[in-house]
């Protein structure tokens, strides 16, 4: 049977099932296939905080959304074209996001009376008319899988567990994905359990063949590769990119990396990733708490290492005092905050941009630190290198604000070669810097950067002491002199204010927009996608995205003032808006939603259009 093949330019698929159904793995594999096929893509995993929430319940639903296209895309998509629902809970939890007309592939086997009751369905939605406005494919995924694996010597439970591979096979057929890598992946993953490996491969193939041979699906789809610029690509999540960026920073600064960290969702994966790269001389230290994590990183920095600590919101709060010590001792340090929904424990697996003001102000005293925020998952790589560059050059702690969405979301990344990366090394100080040629002044600053010398233990003749008490300009000796304190407060501020930050670039294709939409951090994708939509609809909007939150790019005031209106969407109650309003006295229009989720492009397009229309 030859089936019809339909051309599409983009598709959004959401895999949803129970936490135990392996949806994250399924999504990851489909993503890998799609990446290697050459589509542009963007992903959004979404899972419960519980390790294994009770089976079949709404809080137990885990999902993975993937947007892929034959052109460059910016977000994981607002509304899925296809929902794979492995049980009633998955259907119920996700249906409201599904536009009418979208496809639903439901695992009919799981729509048992008991499972339906668990989520409050009185009748089976696969059987009444309630899904009439969608294209429902009711497929007995479990029993098909079990049947396909009859001949294997595995338990029924193991056979049932392979149903996600069946689903993956089916979807792979449906969208013409290359399958070899997945088969290899399964074989490697279960190398130690050959029976499981074989049965999973078989389930995957069965799913593929089910699509191809049965009549359940009459159409398959083709989405051409995207015309990405030439190069080697890989799909990468924000946490992975951030970790690799730190490795690259270590190599490019010629400094050994020391990570002091305490596990916390959604930052732990950076620790996990870095702990694999010991070949690079990277030391990872799982500390007893966040305070020890940053303390050890600072101690290592005193010893000449690239000190890094990684955490999420509550952990940053705990590190505050030590970051203050880093500020006043002027040692390089990178503090990574993978923001999650707060306050307090909040919603650990959900994203948010609510730690900006804490990053800037969450310490006692005047305690300025540079703040950098990556815009997309792959941008976490560059942001990490940039954070290291600033930390080392200016001898300062740097706050790097990622978030839950960037951390777990992924996209294709054009892998840079080492040769393309900047050299960010700065030599340690090894000679006396006093006018007499013999004394060493640990707080005598570089005239241009205002950075103090970094002389590390082991350097003869430069023995010196630093600490948290106010230091005399130059000598660094303890000083309670009022004028010296005022001077030092201002010097520390001036050093941060003077950091070399690239100008803010504005994207305004026609050059005549009167409204600027501004963003920072992970809202880049939805904002850019929204701007595109607005422009497609004839609206004029300029777009700019801040990566440097402190100091701001030098031209930002000018940029802000050259538009009639500035719209600033943030996943908080207006934190960047507060800073910009204060600094430039510009009446920024804030758009704030604090739902633990990224913005949707459509939503933002509407908001932008409204602002344009109100002109």
């Amino acid at each position, binding site marked *: 049977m030859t089936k019809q093949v339909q051309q599409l330019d983009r598709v959004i698929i959401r895999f949803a099932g129970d936490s135990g159904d392996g949806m994250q793995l399924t999504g990851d594999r489909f993503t890998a296939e799609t990446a290697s096929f050459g589509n542009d893509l963007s992903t959004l995993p979404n899972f419960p905080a519980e390790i294994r929430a009770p089976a079949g319940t709404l809080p137990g639903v885990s999902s993975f959304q993937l947007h892929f296209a034959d052109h460059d895309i910016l977000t994981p998509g607002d509304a899925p074209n296809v929902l794979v629902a492995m049980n009633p809970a998955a259907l119920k939890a996700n249906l409201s996001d599904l536009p009418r007309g979208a496809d639903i592939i439901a695992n009919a086997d799981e729509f048992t009376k008991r499972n339906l009751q668990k989520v409050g369905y009185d009748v089976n939605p696969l059987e009444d008319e309630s899904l009439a406005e969608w294209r429902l494919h009711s497929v007995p995924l479990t029993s098909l899988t079990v049947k396909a694996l009859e001949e294997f010597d595995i338990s029924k439970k193991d056979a049932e567990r392979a149903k996600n591979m069946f689903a993956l096979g089916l979807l792979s057929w449906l969208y013409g994905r290359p399958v070899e890598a997945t088969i290899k992946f399964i074989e490697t993953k279960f190398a130690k359990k050959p029976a499981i490996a074989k049965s999973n491969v078989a389930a995957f193939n069965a799913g593929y063949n089910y699509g191809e041979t049965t009549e359940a699906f009459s159409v398959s789809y083709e989405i051409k590769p995207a015309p990405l610029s030439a190069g*080697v*690509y890989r799909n990468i999540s924000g946490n992975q990119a951030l970790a690799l960026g730190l490795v690259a920073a270590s190599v490019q600064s010629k400094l050994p990396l020391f990570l002091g960290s305490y596990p916390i969702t959604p930052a732990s994966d950076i620790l996990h990733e870095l702990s694999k790269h010991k070949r690079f001389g990277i030391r990872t230290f799982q500390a007893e708490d966040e305070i020890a994590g940053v303390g050890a990183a600072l101690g290592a920095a005193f010893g000449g290492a690239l000190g890094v600590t990684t955490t999420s919101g509550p952990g940053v709060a705990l590190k505050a005092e*030590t970051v203050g*010590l880093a500020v006043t001792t002027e040692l390089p340090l990178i503090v990574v905050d993978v923001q999650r929904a707060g306050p307090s424990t909040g919603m650990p697996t959900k994203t948010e941009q609510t730690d900006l003001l804490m990053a800037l102000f969450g310490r006692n005293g005047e305690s300025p630190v540079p703040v950098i925020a990556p815009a997309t998952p792959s941008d976490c790589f560059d942001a990490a290198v940039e954070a290291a560059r600033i930390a080392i050059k200016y001898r300062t702690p740097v706050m790097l604000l990622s978030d839950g969405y960037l951390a777990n979301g992924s996209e294709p990344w054009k892998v840079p070669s080492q040769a393309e990366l900047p050299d960010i090394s700065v030599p340690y100080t090894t000679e006396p810097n006093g006018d007499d040629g013999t004394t060493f002044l640990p707080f005598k600053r570089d005239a241009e950067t205002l950075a103090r010398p970094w002389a590390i233990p082991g350097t003869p003749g430069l023995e010196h002491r*630093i600490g948290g008490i106010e230091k005399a300009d130059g000598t660094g000796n303890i000083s309670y002199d009022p004028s010296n304190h005022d001077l030092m407060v201002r010097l520390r501020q001036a050093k941060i204010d003077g950091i070399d930050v690239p100008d803010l670039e504005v994207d305004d294709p026609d050059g005549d927009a009167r409204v600027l939409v501004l963003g920072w951090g992970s809202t880049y994708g939805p904002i850019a996608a929204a701007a595109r939509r607005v422009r497609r609809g004839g609206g004029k909007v300029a777009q700019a995205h801040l990566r440097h939150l402190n100091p701001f790019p030098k031209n930002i005031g000018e940029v802000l003032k050259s538009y009639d209106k500035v719209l600033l969407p943030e996943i908080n109650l207006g934190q960047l808006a507060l800073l910009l309003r204060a600094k430039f006295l510009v009446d920024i229009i804030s758009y704030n939603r604090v739902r633990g989720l990224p913005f949707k492009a459509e939503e933002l397009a509407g908001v932008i259009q409204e602002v344009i229309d109100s002109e």
Partner: protein
Amino acid sequence: MSESLNGKGLALVPKAEGKQTLKDFKSDQEVRWCPGCGDYAILAAVQSFMPELGIKRENTVFVSGIGCSSRFPYYMNTYGFHSIHGRAPAIATGLAASRPDLSVWVITGDGDALSIGGNHLIHALRRNVNLNILLFNNRIYGLTKGQYSPTSEVGKITKSTPMGSLDKPFNPISLAVGAEAGFVARTIDSDRKHLHSVLREAAAHRGTSLVEIYQNCNIFNDNAFEDLKDPEKRDVITLRLEHGQPIANATQAVRLAPTGGLEVVARDSISPEEILVHDVHNPDPSLAFALSRLDEPAFQHVPIGIFRSVDRPSYDHLMSEQLEMAVAQRGPGDLDELLQGGDTWKIN
């Protein structure tokens, strides 16, 4: 390989070229403790001890927290870090774990180490990073002008406890032994010779060594350790712990109690063979723990010296080993290879 460094605390620290003297270790900063403070004696003892180690001065680092005692690094002409309250063990851990070529000393007080910093202390001990922790125990908060500390005796009247403190103090030795410490010792500010002997062993131990130093705060808790200094009482209450030697003084002796544990009895009431012979290397910490309890009731019989000195590989060393092993197994890291690792595809 890690085994071979045992007992060689400074094996990886470069040796000094010439001979050093006390003066080399004095910084140009004016010492600012109260006149009469026990910290002076300890500073002088440490400064006079350092040349003996024969390591490069620039490879020596003193890290401290906050408190009167934590001013110490300013007075040592080495590298130094006067950090924040309670966090010195954590900061020193990062330094020592990444720089095995340094001799790292932590200076801390009873409040700094046992109150706010208690967690970092016990974790440093179990990890066994190559650190020497000198805990200046004056049983009071000096710098904040006299509140009770976690080593103050019950019922202590201080500014924050006008009707007397309620909580049972820590016994730093018991706590350290309970936290898997490999090296634990006690000495006293006034006895330079003993201080030197303990510092010597602490430095030689590769791993975390904790040295409790009884220190007099003559302003807020004067004479807390007077009994141990009084020439008349001193010798009858102090029990010197020396490896391989019976634990006894002129009048008292320690023996195994018939019901388990240890007891102190009149020396002449038992035969010499009954006196417990001290074994600092006993792998079972139970006797070291029992020894730490002998100072109850307080100052009746106070063991002084090294309670326990048991080698195990140090954390920093194991960490270096893993790095070396990773390189040995798969070669040194190659950034291009790493970045292009995983599932990649090429677009032309």
